[in-house]
C-alpha cells in the first residue's frame, strides 16, 4: 500500500509540480481567503449557518494552511503513504492551534499505517486505529463543541473508508466527501445531478462501491503498475460534485489530491482573476437545493447543516456500542445511507425487508443496513415504550411472526411443481416456450384449488349419505362418462336436496345451499385471481404501450439468460444474428411504399381471409348445432352407449383441423409485422373455439334444459365430460402421432422442412378451450376439475417429451410476456365472462329437473337462496344477513350506485393516465433538450479550448489544466444548467483530450 500511494502521488506529475510551486500555494491560499469571504458578503439564504461555519473554520484554518504550505518538506511528506488520509481530519486540525498542526501531521501518518491493513480488505477491524486516534484528537483539541462535531464527522469518514472495500479504489475520496456533512449545500448538488432515481443516485455518488470497479483491483492487490492516469480518468466521475471544504483543505494538504479537488481548490482563483464565478455557482447551488427534495430530507440539512442530531446521537452510542457500530458507520456516513435509514425505520418489517432486498448493493452492505435498522428500531421502541420487557415481547412476537411467515412461504414454494423440468425446458427452448408450460401449471393450480373446494364442501358431505350404486360398470364409462358414473358424486343429479344430519344432535348440512355457495365461491375466487394476475401482467408488461417500437436495442439487451443448453445458445445466437440482419436491412430500406395495386391486393386478401375464416367458423357452429340436435333424437331411438361420442368427436375434429386450415392463410396474406400475423391467427382461432362452445351452450340451455329430459343437468355434465375427454385424447394423439410424424417427415423425407417450432399460440388456445369447458361444467359436474387436473398433469409430461423430441427452439424473438398477458386476458374475457353469463342464465332462468339433484322441485336454482333468506328472517340472530341481502345484493339501487361510482373512478383514472401521458411526453422532450444543451456546451467548450491552445501554445501542461478546469467552464456550467452529469462528462472529455 505504501508503495502504491507513493507511486500514485509521484506519478501524478501533473499534480505534483502544482503543489511544489510556491506561487501556486500562494494563489491557493489567497483564494481560500477569498472564498471564505464570499459567503459572508453574499446573502445565501439557504445556508447561513453552514456558511458561517465555514467561515469560522477558515479563519482558524488559515494559519495552519499557510504553515503547511510554506513548509519546505511538504513534498517530502507526500511520500508517506498516508497522505490522502490525512485529509480526513483537516477539520480537527483546523480547530487546533498551529503548533499542534505538525504533530497532527505525523500522527495521522501513524494512524494511516493502521488504516492500511483495512484497505487491504479487512473491513471488520476498523476499531483499533480509531481508538488510537481518538486520544490524539482529544488531547490536542480544546473542547470546542463545534470542533467536536466535526471531529466526529471525520470519524465517520475514516470508518467509512475502512469499511467500504469498494471505495478504496479512488484514494479515499468518497469517504472524504461523504463525511463532510456541513456542506450540505454541495451535497444537494450532488443529488440534483443524479436525481432521477435512487440508482443513479448511487452511481453519481462516490461512495457507491460498485462504481469504482476498475481501479479497485489494482488497489486492493497492490499492483505496482497502478496507472495514475487511470486514477485521473476516473476521479472526475466521482468527483464531479464540487466540494467546498474539500477544496479548502484538500488543496493545502494533499499533493496526491487528484484533479477534481484541485479544480475546486483552484476554483476560487477565478475570483482572483476578477470574474466572480463563485456567484453563479452558488446561486445555482441554492436553486438546485430548493428543487431537490433529498437535500431537505437529509438529516444533516435541517437548519444548519452542522449540528446533526442523528450524527450526534450516533456518536454518542458509538463509544458504547463499539465494534458493531463501527461497521455500520459507512451507512451513517454517507448521505444516501442516512436517507435510506431514515426512510426505512418507519416502515413495516415487510416493507423494510423488501426495500433492503431491492437495494442494488452487496450482501455485506445489505446485512449491515439491516443490522442498523434493527438496532435503530429497537432503540426507538425502547424510547417510545419505555417498557423494556414489553418491547422485547413485541419484538420477539414480530420475529416469530416473520419466522412463521418465512416457513409458510417456504412450504408454498416447495409445492411449486416441476421446477427442474421447467428449468430444462427454459434452458433448451427459452422463455417463450416456457410460458406455455407456466400457463399450464398455473391452470393446474387453479383446478387443484377448485377441486379441493368442491371435494370438501360438496362431495365429501354427499359421500357420507351415499346410496349404493346398482348400475353396471363396463369400462366404456370412462370414455362416455355415462352409465355407472351417472349415479356417482360425479354429477349434479346424484346430490341430495335434503339436509344432511348425522345422529340426532349432529349439526345439519344443507346440501342445496352448500352446492350453490361452493360453486359460487369457486367462481368468485377464480374471477379475482384471474383479475389479479391479469392486472399484474398488464402492470409489468404494458407499462407504456405507446413506447413500443420495433427496436434493435431490445434484441440486444434482452438476451435470454434462462437459456443454458449449449446447442440452444448457439442456435439462439444464430437466430439473433439473423434477426439483427433482417432488422438492419429493414431499417436501411426504410418502409417500402406499396403501389396502390399492391395495397389493394393485400387488403382484398385480408378481407377474403377474414370472410373465409368467419364463414368456416359459422359453418362449423351450424354443423355442430344440427349434429347435436339430431344426435339427441338419434340417441332416443338407439341405445348404443358409444353413440354419444359422435358429437365430441366431431367437435374435436373441428378443433384439430380448422386451426391448421387457418394457419394456411398465412401463405396468401402478407403482414408487415409478423406479430400481426400471430394476433390475427389468435383472434380467428379463439373466435372459432368460443363460438363452438357458445353454440353448444345455446343447445344445452335452450333445447336440452327445456326438453323433458329426465335429469338434464346430469346430461349436460356428461356431454361436457365427453368433450373434455375427447379433447384430451386428441391432444395426446396429436402429440404422439402428429408431431412425431412431422418430425419424421421433416428429418427423413423432406429435409428442407427441418424440425418444426412449437406453436405456442395454438397450444395455449387448446388449454383455454379446455378450461372454459371445465368452468361451464363445474356446476353440472362438480368433480370436473379433477378430470382436468389429471389431464393437465399428463399433458405436461406428454408435451414435455414431445417438445424435447420433435421440436426446435423458436427462431423469432417472441414477445413472451406480452403473449402471456394476452393469453390470460383471453382466458378472462371471452372465456371466463362467457362462462359466468352461461351459469347466470342457468341459475336465474332455468327450471331444475324435478326428479334429481339438490334443487329438485324448485322453480329455479336461485330460489334456494330466496327460501334460505326467508327462513333466516324468522331467526333474530341472522338479521344482518337478511339486511345485507335486501339492501346490497338484492337491491337494484345499490348496484346502480356502485356502478356509478366505479364508472366515475374509472373515468378519473383514465383522465389521470391521459395527463401522465402528456407529462411523459413533455419529460421525454425535456430529456432530449437537455441532451442537446449538453452537446452544445461541450462543443463550445472544445472550441474555447482550441482557441486557448492556439493563443498560448507554449503554456505548460499545468496551466492548460487549470484553464481547462476553471476558466470558462464554471461560468458556463454554472449558468447554463444545473445538471451535474454534464460537468462530469465535460471533464472527462477534457481528460480524454
Amino acid at each position, binding site marked *: 500500500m505504501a508503495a502504491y500511494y507513493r507511486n500514485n502521488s509521484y506519478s501524478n506529475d501533473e499534480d505534483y509540480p502544482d503543489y511544489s510551486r510556491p506561487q501556486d500555494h500562494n494563489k491557493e491560499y489567497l483564494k481560500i481567503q477569498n472564498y471564505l469571504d464570499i459567503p459572508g458578503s453574499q446573502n445565501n439564504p439557504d445556508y447561513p449557518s453552514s456558511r458561517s461555519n465555514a467561515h469560522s473554520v477558515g479563519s482558524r484554518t488559515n494559519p495552519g494552511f499557510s504553515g503547511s504550505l510554506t513548509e519546505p518538506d511538504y513534498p517530502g511528506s507526500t511520500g508517506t503513504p498516508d497522505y490522502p488520509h490525512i485529509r480526513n481530519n483537516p477539520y480537527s486540525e483546523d480547530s487546533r492551534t498551529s503548533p499542534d498542526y505538525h504533530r497532527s501531521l505525523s500522527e495521522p501518518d501513524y494512524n494511516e499505517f493502521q488504516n492500511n491493513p483495512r484497505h*487491504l480488505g479487512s*473491513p*471488520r477491524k476498523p476499531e483499533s486505529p480509531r481508538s488510537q486516534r481518538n486520544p490524539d484528537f482529544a488531547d490536542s483539541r480544546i473542547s470546542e463543541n463545534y470542533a467536536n462535531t466535526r471531529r466526529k464527522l471525520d470519524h465517520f469518514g475514516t470508518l467509512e473508508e475502512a469499511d467500504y472495500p469498494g471505495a478504496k479504489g479512488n484514494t479515499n475520496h468518497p469517504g472524504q466527501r461523504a463525511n463532510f456533512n456541513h456542506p450540505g449545500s454541495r451535497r444537494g448538488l450532488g443529488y440534483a445531478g443524479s436525481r*432521477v*432515481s435512487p*440508482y*443513479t443516485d448511487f*452511481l453519481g455518488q462516490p461512495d457507491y462501491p*460498485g462504481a469504482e*470497479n476498475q481501479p479497485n*483491483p489494482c488497489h*486492493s*492487490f497492490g499492483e505496482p503498475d497502478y496507472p495514475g492516469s487511470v486514477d485521473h480518468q476516473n476521479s472526475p*466521475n466521482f468527483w464531479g460534485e464540487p466540494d467546498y471544504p474539500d477544496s479548502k483543505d484538500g488543496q493545502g494538504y494533499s499533493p496526491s489530491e487528484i484533479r477534481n479537488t484541485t479544480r475546486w481548490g483552484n476554483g476560487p482563483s477565478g475570483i482572483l482573476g476578477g470574474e466572480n464565478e463563485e456567484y453563479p455557482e452558488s446561486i445555482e447551488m441554492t436553486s438546485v437545493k430548493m428543487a431537490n427534495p433529498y437535500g431537505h430530507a437529509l438529516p444533516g440539512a435541517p437548519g444548519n447543516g452542522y449540528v446533526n442530531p442523528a450524527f450526534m446521537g450516533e456518536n454518542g452510542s458509538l463509544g458504547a456500542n463499539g465494534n458493531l457500530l463501527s461497521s455500520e458507520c459507512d451507512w451513517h456516513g454517507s448521505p444516501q445511507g442516512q436517507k435510506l435509514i431514515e426512510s426505512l425505520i418507519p416502515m413495516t418489517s415487510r416493507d423494510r425487508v423488501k426495500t*433492503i*432486498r*431491492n437495494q*442494488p448493493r452487496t*450482501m455485506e452492505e445489505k446485512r449491515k443496513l439491516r443490522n442498523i435498522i434493527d438496532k435503530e428500531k429497537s432503540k426507538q421502541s425502547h424510547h417510545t415504550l419505555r417498557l423494556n420487557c414489553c418491547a422485547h415481547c413485541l419484538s420477539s412476537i414480530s420475529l416469530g411472526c416473520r*419466522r412463521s411467515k*418465512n*416457513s409458510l412461504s*417456504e412450504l408454498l*414454494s416447495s409445492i411449486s411443481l416441476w*421446477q427442474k423440468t*421447467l*428449468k430444462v425446458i427454459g434452458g433448451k427452448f*427459452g*422463455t417463450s416456450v416456457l410460458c406455455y408450460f407456466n400457463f399450464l401449471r398455473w391452470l393446474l393450480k387453479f383446478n387443484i384449488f377448485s377441486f379441493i373446494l368442491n371435494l370438501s364442501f360438496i362431495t365429501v358431505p354427499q359421500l357420507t349419505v351415499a346410496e349404493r350404486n346398482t348400475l353396471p360398470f363396463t369400462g366404456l364409462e370412462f370414455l362416455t362418462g355415462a352409465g355407472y358414473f351417472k349415479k356417482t358424486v360425479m354429477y349434479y343429479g346424484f346430490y341430495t336436496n335434503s339436509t344432511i344430519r348425522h345422529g340426532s344432535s349432529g349439526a345439519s348440512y344443507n346440501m342445496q345451499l352448500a352446492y350453490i355457495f361452493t360453486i359460487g365461491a369457486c367462481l368468485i375466487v377464480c374471477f379475482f385471481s384471474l383479475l389479479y394476475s391479469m392486472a399484474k401482467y398488464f402492470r409489468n*408488461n404494458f*407499462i*407504456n404501450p405507446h*413506447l413500443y417500437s420495433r*427496436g*434493435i*436495442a*431490445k434484441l*440486444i*439487451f*434482452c*438476451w*435470454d*439468460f*434462462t437459456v*443454458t443448453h*449449449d446447442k440452444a*445458445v448457439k442456435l439462439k*445466437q444464430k437466430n439473433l*444474428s439473423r434477426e*439483427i440482419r433482417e432488422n*438492419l436491412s429493414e431499417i436501411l430500406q426504410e418502409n417500402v411504399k406499396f403501389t396502390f395495386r399492391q395495397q389493394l391486393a393485400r387488403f382484398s386478401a385480408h378481407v377474403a381471409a377474414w370472410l373465409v375464416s368467419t364463414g368456416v367458423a359459422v359453418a362449423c357452429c351450424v354443423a355442430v348445432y344440427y349434429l347435436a340436435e339430431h344426435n339427441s333424437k338419434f340417441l332416443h331411438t338407439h341405445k348404443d352407449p358409444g353413440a354419444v361420442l359422435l358429437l365430441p368427436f366431431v367437435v374435436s375434429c373441428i378443433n384439430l383441423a380448422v386451426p391448421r386450415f387457418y394457419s394456411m392463410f398465412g401463405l396468401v396474406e402478407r403482414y408487415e409485422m409478423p406479430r400481426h400475423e400471430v394476433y390475427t391467427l389468435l383472434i380467428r382461432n379463439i373466435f372459432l373455439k368460443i363460438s363452438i362452445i357458445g353454440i353448444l351452450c345455446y343447445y344445452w340451455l335452450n333445447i336440452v334444459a327445456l326438453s323433458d329430459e329426465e335429469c338434464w343437468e346430469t346430461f349436460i355434465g356428461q356431454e361436457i365430460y365427453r368433450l373434455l375427454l375427447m379433447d384430451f385424447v386428441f391432444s395426446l394423439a396429436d402429440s404422439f402421432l402428429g408431431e412425431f410424424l412431422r418430425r419424421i417427415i421433416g428429418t427423413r423425407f423432406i429435409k428442407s422442412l427441418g424440425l418444426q417450432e412449437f406453436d405456442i399460440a395454438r397450444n395455449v388456445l387448446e388449454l383455454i378451450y379446455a378450461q372454459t369447458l371445465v368452468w361451464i361444467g363445474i356446476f353440472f359436474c362438480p368433480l370436473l376439475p379433477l378430470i382436468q387436473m389429471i389431464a393437465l398433469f399428463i399433458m405436461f409430461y406428454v408435451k414435455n417429451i414431445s417438445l424435447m423430441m420433435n421440436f426446435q427452439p423458436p427462431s423469432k424473438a417472441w*414477445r*413472451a*410476456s*406480452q403473449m402471456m398477458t394476452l393469453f390470460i386476458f383471453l382466458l378472462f374475457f371471452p372465456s371466463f365472462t362467457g362462462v359466468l353469463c352461461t351459469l347466470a342464465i342457468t341459475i336465474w332462468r332455468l327450471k331444475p329437473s324435478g326428479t334429481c339433484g339438490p334443487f329438485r322441485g324448485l322453480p329455479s336454482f336461485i330460489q334456494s337462496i330466496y327460501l334460505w333468506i326467508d327462513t333466516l328472517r324468522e331467526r333474530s340472530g341472522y338479521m344482518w344477513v337478511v339486511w345485507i341481502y335486501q339492501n346490497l345484493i338484492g337491491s337494484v339501487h345499490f348496484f346502480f350506485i356502485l356502478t356509478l361510482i366505479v364508472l366515475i373512478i374509472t373515468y378519473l383514472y383514465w383522465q389521470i393516465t391521459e395527463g401522465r401521458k402528456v407529462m411523459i411526453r413533455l419529460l421525454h422532450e425535456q*430529456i*432530449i433538450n437537455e*441532451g*442537446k444543451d449538453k*452537446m452544445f456546451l461541450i462543443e463550445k467548450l472544445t472550441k474555447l479550448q482550441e482557441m486557448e491552445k492556439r493563443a498560448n501554445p507554449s503554456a505548460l501542461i499545468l496551466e492548460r489544466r487549470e484553464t481547462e478546469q476553471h476558466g470558462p467552464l464554471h461560468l458556463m456550467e454554472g449558468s447554463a444548467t444545473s445538471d451535474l452529469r454534464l460537468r462530469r462528462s465535460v471533464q472527462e472529455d477534457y481528460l480524454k483530450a
Partner: protein
Amino acid sequence: MGRCGGDRQAEHLPTRWPQLLDPGTLEAVVLTMGSKQTVFTREQLEEYQDCTFFTRKEIMRLFYRYQDLAPQLVPLDYTGCPAVKVPYELIGSMPELKDNPFRQRIAQVFSDDGDGHMTLDNFLDMFSVMSEMAPRDLKAYYAFKIYDFNNDDYICAWDLEQTVTRLTRGELSAEEVSLVCEKVLDEADSDHDGRLSLEDFRNMILRAPDFLSTFHIRI
C-alpha cells in the same frame, strides 16, 4: 481478511463432511437445531433471507451448489463466516453460466473486486438478482453493469460492440456490428451524448417487457 477471521482454519476444515452427511440431513439439522454444528446459524440464515429473494431452502440449495463447486475450498461450516472465494474458473463452469455469453461479466459484476472470484455472499447476491422475484429496477441496474464492459458507468459504443459480438458469436461483419451499435445508440440514447447512461438503459428496458423474464437464471 474476513470479518470473522479464521479463514485459514476454515480452509482446513474436514473435507470429508460432504461424504459423511448428505445435504438433506444437514439441512434438517439447520432447520431444527439452529446453532448446533451447522452450516449457518439461524441469524445468518435470517439475514440471508432478508437480503435476498430466497427462502431458507433455496439458500441451502444454493449453498450446496456453491460448496459443490469447490469442495476442498469451501467449508461446510459457515457459522464463522470464513472468507472463502471460489475462483472464477469454477464459477464460470456452472451449468447455469457455462454457455452464457456474458458469464464473465456476470461474475465480475457480482464479485467484490471485479475479478470474478466469488464469496458465498456474492454468489447469493448474483442468483438473487437473477431470480424471478427481483424487481425490474434491480435487474435493470445489474444488467446495465453487465453490459458496461469498461465499468465507466456508461454503455458506450465499445461496450455495445462487445455485447453484439458476444451475442452473435462473431457472425456479423464489423460494419454490421458498428451499424447495430449506431442504431442502438440512436434508439436508446435519449440525451444524445453518444452513450447510454443508466437512465437511458432503464427507459429502454421499460419498453422491453420481456426483459423481466429473460434476465433470469433458474436455479
